[in-house]
């Protein structure tokens, strides 16, 4: 792996994070982060879809007429998402019920389309694949952080195991019901953006 490949792979984890910097893929993600388990599975599915759709599109990029490229991209992504949907239904039925329509909505996840348009259309397959994995991981990191805080404070559990000790509850501690509500995901992401941008002044908007 060359120096450039490393940059492509690891840049989206921090400085060029798809959610906090590129402003992509906020759509379907927030509603699935109230628990760690569905968030993790969602993140893995999205990473797989981005990586492989980037790879496939990059392989056929020279044969697609540019007028119909959006439809071609959507069909590639939709086919991949259908495969993932069927796999989830077969091996993780409970989680796939919990995620409901949000698995299908990976198709219109802006990260997927954004990376296809911005990267895979103009780069070689291997670099596109790495770019897909990197952006998927950047998305995964954020999703897992948000889900961690929401599940810990909202339900007192992590990955469905009780973490908050009973003595806390006996002393009067209560689970914060607000954390379960979807708007809290936005506020947590806003805090992450705040921290990231106060550390990295280049990212601030004028």
């Amino acid at each position, binding site marked *: 792996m060359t120096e450039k490949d490393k940059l492509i792979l690891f840049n989206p984890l921090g400085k060029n994070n798809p959610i*906090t910097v590129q*402003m*992509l*893929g*906020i*759509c*379907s*993600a*927030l*509603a699935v982060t109230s628990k760690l388990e569905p968030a993790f599975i969602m993140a893995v599915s999205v990473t797989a879809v981005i990586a492989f759709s980037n790879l496939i599109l990059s392989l056929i990029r020279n044969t697609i007429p540019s007028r119909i490229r*959006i*439809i071609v991209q*959507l*069909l590639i992504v*939709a*086919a991949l*998402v*259908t495969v993932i*949907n*069927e796999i989830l239904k077969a091996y993780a039925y409970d989680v796939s019920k919990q995620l*409901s*329509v949000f698995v*299908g*909505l990976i*198709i*219109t*996840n*802006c990260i997927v*389309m954004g990376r296809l348009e911005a990267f895979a259309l103009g780069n070689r397959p291997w670099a596109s694949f790495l770019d897909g994995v990197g952006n998927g991981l950047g998305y995964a990191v954020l999703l897992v952080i948000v889900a961690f805080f929401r599940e810990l404070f909202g339900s007192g559990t992590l990955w469905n195991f009780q973490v908050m000790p009973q003595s806390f509850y006996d002393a009067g501690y209560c689970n914060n019901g607000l954390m379960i*509500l*979807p*708007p*809290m*995901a*936005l*506020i947590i*992401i*806003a805090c992450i*953006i*705040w*921290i*990231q*941008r*106060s550390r990295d002044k280049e990212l*601030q*908007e*004028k």
Partner: protein
Amino acid sequence: MQEYLNTFIRSVFMENMLFTYFLGMCSFLAISKNVRTAFGLGVAVTFVLLVTLPVNYLLDNYVLKAGALLWLGNVFEGVDLSFLSLIIFIAVVAATVQLLEMVIEHYLPALYNSLGIFLPLIAVNCAILGGSLFMQQKEFPTIGIATTYAFGSGVGWLLAITGMAAIRDKLQYSDIPKPLKGLGIAFIITALMGIGFMSFSGIKI
């Protein structure tokens, strides 16, 4: 009649696409900087929802569902094509958007000029595909109800993006901590509006 009204009100307020499910967030954050364009995009989204949702409803009920192909003859009784629904739905959405773009460009050039750039973007707006997927999940009894649901969801989205644009207009004059400017504060405002919309969820109809 009452059923239609209930579906409409529920889809506008209690199950608002943006504030309860966060669908269509990307274009919501990117295009809510100006009230006029935000309103235009909202109208376009409503329109596309109104066209694609009934079409997908018919496809779902007469082609995709288990046993839906019965009208072709008894041979097709056991056929279940529902695994194809994602691909079919997105194909319908993309084709409709492309078609709409051409029709509007030809017959309504004024509208085309004000919407032009956003129209192709609507194909990848989560709210559109989300509408069709929710329609499939909720199993609406008639196509009328499904269409009402589409209209309500569109109006809810329109309300949300116009409100957000109006707030962001005023925000230019306020003193926000530097790292929060732009994206950060937009997230917090959306969250607060979402909490506001939650007060509707207590209404029973």
